[in-house]
């Protein structure tokens, strides 16, 4: 089904890691939406989830830890025609990259942002992440986590993000469904994607996620910010599905003046020398 996006490489993840399902979900969704690898840019940071683009066929930019949302925004600014999937871990996105998380939401670029959320630092071998639960013990957090868990959907809604969802990689079909909506959404679309780390997180396991999550009812109105917020604030039972949507915000690309009259991406453009000459002459 997803052969266009398949890549014949050894995958670096541990057997059983949630990222395998995530990979399948992404590849299949893109295939089903009829994208070609060359239309797509996968932008990622550093971490286990950050290795994502190495394991599928597409353009990619695997940059620094924490900075991928800025990269993604830059890519879109330079060429709004590219479909950008920005994916990285909970640590990468919310810890090192917290500031870009906040501000990218404010810009509302038309990108799909998957946080592969395993509530732990996988690649660096098991420290607590911002989404780790209170009391979660590790080699470093020897007395357990003391910091309030980072509720990324709630924060996103508080910033009036234009699309906020949560998904669980254990459920491939539903997650594909959510992802496809996110991709088709115009503007920044966040998916807090729950993805177990079988090596370092013995609390938030596949089973745990299954037991501690539920799908939003059809009656849930994602257009109502306060209602969405109420849902998001509840961390005891994790809502899956599209939590919030604000279709009225223009995208960043729409707000970029220069694309109003000329839709060519930047690389296809040239300097207008006459205009420059005129400008220089205003300094006489």
């Amino acid at each position, binding site marked *: 089904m997803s052969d266009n996006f398949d890549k014949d490489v050894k995958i670096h993840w541990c057997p059983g890691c949630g990222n395998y399902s995530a990979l399948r979900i992404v590849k299949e969704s893109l295939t089903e939406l009829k994208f070609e690898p060359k239309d797509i840019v996968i932008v990622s940071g550093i971490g286990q989830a950050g290795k994502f683009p190495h394991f599928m066929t597409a353009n*990619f930019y695997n940059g620094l830890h924490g900075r991928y949302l*800025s990269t993604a*925004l830059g890519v879109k600014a*330079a060429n709004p025609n590219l479909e950008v999937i920005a994916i990285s871990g909970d640590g990468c996105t919310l810890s090192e990259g917290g500031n870009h998380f906040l501000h990218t939401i404010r810009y509302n670029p038309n990108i799909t942002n998957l946080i592969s959320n395993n509530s732990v630092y996988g690649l660096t071998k098991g420290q607590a992440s911002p989404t780790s639960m209170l009391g979660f013990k590790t080699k470093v957090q020897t007395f357990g986590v003391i910091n309030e868990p980072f509720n990324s959907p709630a924060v996103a809604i508080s910033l009036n993000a234009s699309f906020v969802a949560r998904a669980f990689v254990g459920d491939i079909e539903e997650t594909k469904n959510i992802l496809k909506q996110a991709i088709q959404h115009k503007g920044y679309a966040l998916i807090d994607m729950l993805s177990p780390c079988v090596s370092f997180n013995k609390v938030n396991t596949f089973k745990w996620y299954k037991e501690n999550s539920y799908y939003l009812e059809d009656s849930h109105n994602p257009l109502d910010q306060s209602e969405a917020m109420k849902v998001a604030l509840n961390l005891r039972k994790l809502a899956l599905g599209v939590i919030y949507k604000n279709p009225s915000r223009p995208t960043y690309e729409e707000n970029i003046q220069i694309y109003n009259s000329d839709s060519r991406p930047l690389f296809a453009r040239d300097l207008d020398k006459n205009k*420059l000459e005129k400008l220089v002459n205003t300094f006489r």
Partner: protein
Amino acid sequence: MTRSVNLAISGQAGQGIATVESLLTKALKRSGLNVFASREYMSRVRGGINSTAIRVSSQPVHAFEDRIDILIPLSDEAIPHLQHRMTNNTLVIGEKAFLSMDLLLSFISIEVPFTELAKEIGSILYSNIIALGVISSIFKVERQILHDLIEFTFLKKGDKVIQPNKSAINKGYEIGAELEDKYEILKKFYMNKNPEIKNDLILDGTESIALGAIAGGVQYECFYPMAPSTGIGTFLAQQASKFGLIVDMSEDEISVINKALGASYAGARSLVTTSGGGFSLMTEAISLAGMLELPIVVVVGQRPGPATGMPTRTTQEDLRLVLHAGAGFFPRIIFAPGCIEDSFYLTQKAFDLAQKYQVPVFILTDQYLVDSYYNLPFLNLDSLKNEKFIVKTDKDYQRFKFTKSGISPRGIPGYGEGLVAADSHTHTEAGMISEDPEIREKSVEKRLKKLKLIKDASIPPEFIGDANKIKYQIVSWGSTYYIIKEALDKINRSDIGFLHFSQVYPIHESTKDYLKKAKINIMVEQNPTGQFANLIENEIHIQIDKKILKYSGYTLSVEDIVAQITDAINGGN
């Protein structure tokens, strides 16, 4: 030798000194006089004490002199602030309250009740414009030039702003005429005019860099405000829609550089503008640019540190920062424009080289240069090419192909059939993570090769003097160019040469020969340790013999250089 009249206007932030400076320099130029102006100001929005220095001359002037011939004080702090630059012959024109006689300074003073007169026109806000009129009158600038400028400047604000300003100008001319009748001394400020320069450009360093960026085809400028580089982003923002340029004031410097690299990856000509502190935050991503081989132009406006330091003052102390920023080894290019023309041409060139070699190119400037301006006849746009240096990719395109030159043809996602990778790990030709020692070695050697290419193409230093006669050679880089040049003109000795670098890394191989020609090489730098002297030593293994270093946060002046070079030479070797 150049004779100039040096005028200073000083007062608080918010008193409109910048307006006078801008109008006056334009007016003087349009009347056929050469001008040079430079600003010094505190890190304040209102209050404090700032000044502008304007040199007026029949010959071209391009450098800062300490000496003040005419001072217009606009606050009582003006004279205390500038007294070290005043002489017995300094003429002060101002109102009584600001003439602070209690300082027991000897200078010549002419009282003009600017505030009173301004009130008559309608608001004390006009005092600076009256002063502008007085000075223009003294320099015999046609009044119409001022009127035109006023009209142009306040076009959008309409007649109710234009009219009183014109009245203020007229009032200034009236007083100017009166003063000339009364004070013989004013005659000595008369200077021949040269109609040819009326149509000259007049640009400051900020404008020149920004125009250079446009000439270089900038398409994506990202910045976070920080003195003294903020003006570049502001300028470009105002030109953005006209030039199809995206200007993004972003949340912080880290996002700035990462966005710019993202845009560069997708094919944009990217620019970021910052200062030492903001640049520090970009360090990791500079190294990323090295790894991803993405073109990027980075303008760093130097200001004295460490840390916040003196935000609006000047220095040349971030060369080592820019040279060494980023973990690991990768090639880079550093320009340090010596003048306004350089600021334009080198910025343009920076874009070309960044694309060509797929490396970060730095423009190292400083508060002195971005805030200085003078008239110049033209900027040459004829040779602009802005080659794209990108390829349309085919199916098996590999972004990091090992080639003989070290340069891999650059593809852009969405242009051609191929896929374009960018990977921050050590990677294979296809951009896949690799831990293979051979791949690492080849990758390092790829980068070394590129550095060699870049070095071979670097700009030679400019030598002024008679290579066969020199015993001493002044070596400098960046913004001190004209200051030293004028000082050497003043000293006027054929045994002193001048070697100036506007490309400071990698330096041109001719440097060795140049340095060997002089018996004593004397480096002039505005930092406490001689950073460029160190760089030269590392690159060509010649030790600079003497260093003239200044680090007060205030620019070197022509007088400083004259004195210190004289000293250095007389101090023997």
